């Protein structure tokens, strides 16, 4: 298929890897932000084909992984209520809350639905006026335009039984948090191309000024990833501090303006807790007060939630690139995809799930 097959061409990928070998003269540590990229890297064995000087560490770009435990527990409480139809992206169903997950709520009779698009949740609200339809609106910038459109569309339709439980986070504050940590080892970032498709990459200039490291907008196919790595190595070797775009077929400097306008119409910046990492100031989005009637946290009183995280799980350190899944004593022992201790073992973007699935 066009825009897929040519980016999986083994000879082209091999050529770019050879060019990386020719370019590199010393060790460099790169972080790929997005968990989708982590999975592609491990699945295609890109990490094993790179010269030994280049180490890839895996970033926090896994929305399912960083959604805070308190919000998962809130979702579980809301989904357990009668007359609630709780809609979610499929990935969230097995994410462990404090002792249970959405699957177990469903097994106990809760009406939990997996939807492909947030508009499917709006359609369910339209068809079921007697039900409270709640959509678990999680994600990074990429998923914000679809999620906010569901609110705008529900508003346009005059629905009074649709609300969203919002857990939205953004990449630039996470990069700032990682680079502000005294233990960080990251010398360049491969940016999450689809986040940049929406947001562009103008907002990263201030990070360059602040931390003096190069970044490369990178796509998701094997050829995109090795091209991103090559560009990062070229910038590092030349001592250049700039943002390069190695995903130019999908990403422009300005991004998708109509989507950015809708995001800012519905959301405003707020502090967010990142699971395993902690609070990062102004690192996410929440609903503006004028959309309170679509805010599930305001519509449902779930009382005080007492969270309990696994004491063994080191997902937070993995998400910051400080440790790798192998460093966790529970990896593949107490913690497996069918019985995960942390969200990084569940998601198709979680680093632990990638290492487990592809036997690293």
């Amino acid at each position, binding site marked *: 298929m066009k825009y897929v097959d040519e980016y999986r061409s083994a000879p082209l990928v091999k*050529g770019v890897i050879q*060019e990386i070998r020719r370019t590199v003269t010393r060790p460099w540590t790169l972080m790929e932000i997005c968990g989708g990229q982590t999975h592609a890297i491990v699945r295609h064995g890109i990490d094993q084909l790179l010269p030994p000087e280049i180490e890839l560490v895996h970033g926090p770009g896994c929305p399912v992984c960083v959604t805070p435990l308190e919000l998962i527990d809130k979702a579980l409480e809301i989904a357990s209520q009668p007359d609630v139809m709780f809609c979610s992206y499929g990935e969230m169903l097995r994410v462990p809350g404090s002792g249970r997950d959405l699957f177990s709520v469903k097994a106990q009779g809760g009406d939990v639905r997996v939807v492909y698009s947030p508009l499917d949740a709006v359609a369910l609200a339209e068809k079921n006026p007697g039900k409270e339809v709640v959509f678990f609106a999680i994600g990074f910038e990429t998923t914000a335009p679809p999620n906010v459109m569901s609110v705008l569309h529900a508003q346009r339709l005059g629905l009074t039984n649709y609300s969203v439980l919002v857990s939205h986070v953004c990449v630039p504050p996470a990069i700032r948090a990682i680079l502000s940590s005294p233990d960080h080892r990251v010398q360049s970032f491969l940016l999450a191309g689809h986040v940049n498709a929406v947001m562009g990459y103008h907002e990263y200039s201030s990070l360059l000024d602040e931390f003096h490291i190069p970044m490369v907008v990178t796509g998701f196919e094997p050829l995109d990833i090795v091209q991103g790595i090559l560009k990062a190595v070229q910038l590092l070797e030349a001592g250049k501090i700039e943002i390069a775009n190695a995903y130019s077929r999908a990403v422009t400097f300005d991004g998708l303006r109509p989507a950015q306008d809708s995001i800012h119409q519905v959301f405003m910046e707020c502090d967010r807790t990142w699971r395993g990492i902690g609070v990062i100031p102004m690192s996410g989005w929440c609903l503006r007060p004028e959309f309170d009637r679509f805010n599930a946290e305001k519509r449902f009183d779930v009382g005080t939630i007492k969270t309990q995280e696994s004491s063994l799980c080191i997902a937070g350190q993995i998400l910051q690139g400080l440790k790798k899944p192998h460093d966790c004593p529970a990896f593949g022992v107490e913690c497996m995809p069918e019985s995960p201790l942390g969200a990084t073992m569940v998601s198709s973007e979680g680093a632990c799930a990638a290492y487990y699935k592809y036997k690293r």
Partner: protein
Amino acid sequence: MCLGVPGKIVEKYEKGGLQMAKVDFGGVFREACLAYVPEANVGEYCIIHVGFAISLLSESEANETLDLLKQIGTFEEEIGQG
């Protein structure tokens, strides 16, 4: 979750006040919302994420990049043969 898949717009239509499209993912057809990329035409490719087009793919940019990367590959072959 940030995974997006390229798909070809095969039909554009309006549904419930939203600009929608029928999208071909290599023989599998799904509906997607074009609200953010209304300029996408039938025959063009978009990145589709959770049922929404989030980018109209640029064929010229794609070709330019591929040509550049093919040159790296060719250079490699020449070195190999030399």
